């Protein structure tokens, strides 16, 4: 009997491979490359596909019937809304994002207030659809520079576009996700300063399996993987805090 169960488990692991489509907040673009490599090593039968964008846009699309399996938001608000509307299974927080002031120019970011005032263009994600944008605006208030800076903000549609504005030197400084700066593609490109946590509400990021998924088991497999010990190590290496 026991042998049968073991065989059954093995068979289920081998036979029922699936393509899992994940709509992921833009700040996850680089950390998910590492997580995917680990996941696909552990579950070689599954194939992961990612779509990156602003969490608010994904929320709207999921309500319209977006055919995805897992939604990884940059906040807890949008997954909770989906859950309340019966569109997803129970969401769970996977990481806590941090905000950093980033520049690729010769600007001293260790004094954020001066850096904000000195910059000609400040990149921030759109606070309407991107949780990192909300934190960015709150940071400007925290340093009492909102009124001086508000006319020189350039809004990114999501946090990675915002980061790209800075990386391409089109913005002098930007309030971006710390995890993106830690990615090898960007780490050596500029200087950063971690914004003190007191300046903005913690960016707790939640994921949820979407009810309309074609393969709940596979979706759950990936969802649960996000909270595994191996995954946590990767979250930490990209500068994320781990929710209790």
């Amino acid at each position, binding site marked *: 009997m026991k042998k049968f169960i073991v065989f059954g488990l093995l068979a289920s692991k081998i036979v029922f491979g699936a393509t899992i489509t994940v709509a992921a907040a833009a700040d996850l*673009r680089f950390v998910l490359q590492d997580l995917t490599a680990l996941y696909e090593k552990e579950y070689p039968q599954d194939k992961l*596909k990612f*779509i990156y964008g602003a969490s608010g846009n994904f929320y709207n699309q999921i309500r319209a019937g977006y*055919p995805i399996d897992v939604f990884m938001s940059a906040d807890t608000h949008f997954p909770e809304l989906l859950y309340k509307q019966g569109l997803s299974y129970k969401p769970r927080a996977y990481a806590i994002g941090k905000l950093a002031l980033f520049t690729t120019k010769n600007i001293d970011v260790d004094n954020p207030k001066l850096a904000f005032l000195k910059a000609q263009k400040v990149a921030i994600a759109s606070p309407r659809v991107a949780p990192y944008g909300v934190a960015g605006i709150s940071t400007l208030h925290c340093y009492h520079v909102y009124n001086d800076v508000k006319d020189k903000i350039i809004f990114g549609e*999501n946090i990675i576009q915002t980061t790209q504005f800075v990386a391409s030197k089109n913005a002098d400084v930007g309030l971006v996700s710390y995890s993106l700066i830690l990615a090898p593609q*960007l780490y050596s490109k500029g200087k950063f300063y971690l914004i003190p946590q007191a300046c903005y509400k913690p960016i707790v990021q939640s994921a949820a399996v979407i009810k309309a998924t074609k393969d709940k088991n596979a979706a759950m497999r990936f969802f649960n993987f996000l909270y595994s010990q191996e995954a946590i190590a990767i979250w930490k290496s990209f500068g994320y805090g781990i929710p209790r």
Partner: protein
Amino acid sequence: MIDYSPFLISFGVAISTTIVLGVVGIFISYFLAFNKSIWIDMIEPFIMSPLVLPPTVLGFYIMYMFGLQSPFGRFLNNIGIHLLFNFNGLLLGSIIYSLPFAVSPVVSGFRSVPKSIIEASYTLGKSKFYTLLKVIIPNAKYSIISALVLVFSHTIGEFGVVLMVGGDIPGKTRTASIAIFDYVQELNYKQANITALILFAIAMSTLIFLQILKRFQER
């Protein structure tokens, strides 16, 4: 190394749109070109509106009409019609978005066909449909060909509508123009460059083709 799926999707959508609009466009153009009624004059702006409307306006309305959060969208879903976030959605969005390009050149082509030969065909007892097929269309063939080429290249190049209605799903609705956007965002400038160059070459060759066509027409 280069991911071909966005190109295959773009071409699939563009070819399908061109076929659908080739047929639909000719009939719409026929009614617009030869009908003197005031009602037809009022329809024309609606057909031409995608020329001046931001793609996001179209994308937004298509999404809200056919999405599951609307009663109409739920009704369609229940009877098995899915028009969002799949190939059909891309096709629907592209047909609406490229409609003016299928109609505008053909209408002016049809109007420039000499009245006398159309009337000669009627006098010989030929039906309206037969006249359209054998007299009007052959005389306006350059306009029709340029309309088809324009529809094709315009569909390849569209971004806003396909992003909102298609949803950027890799291997399904991520078209070449959206792929560029994604490559740039992940700082993958090399892939963005390759994809952009290919699209640039396609766009230029269609325009050059139209230029050559114009020469032929003027002869």
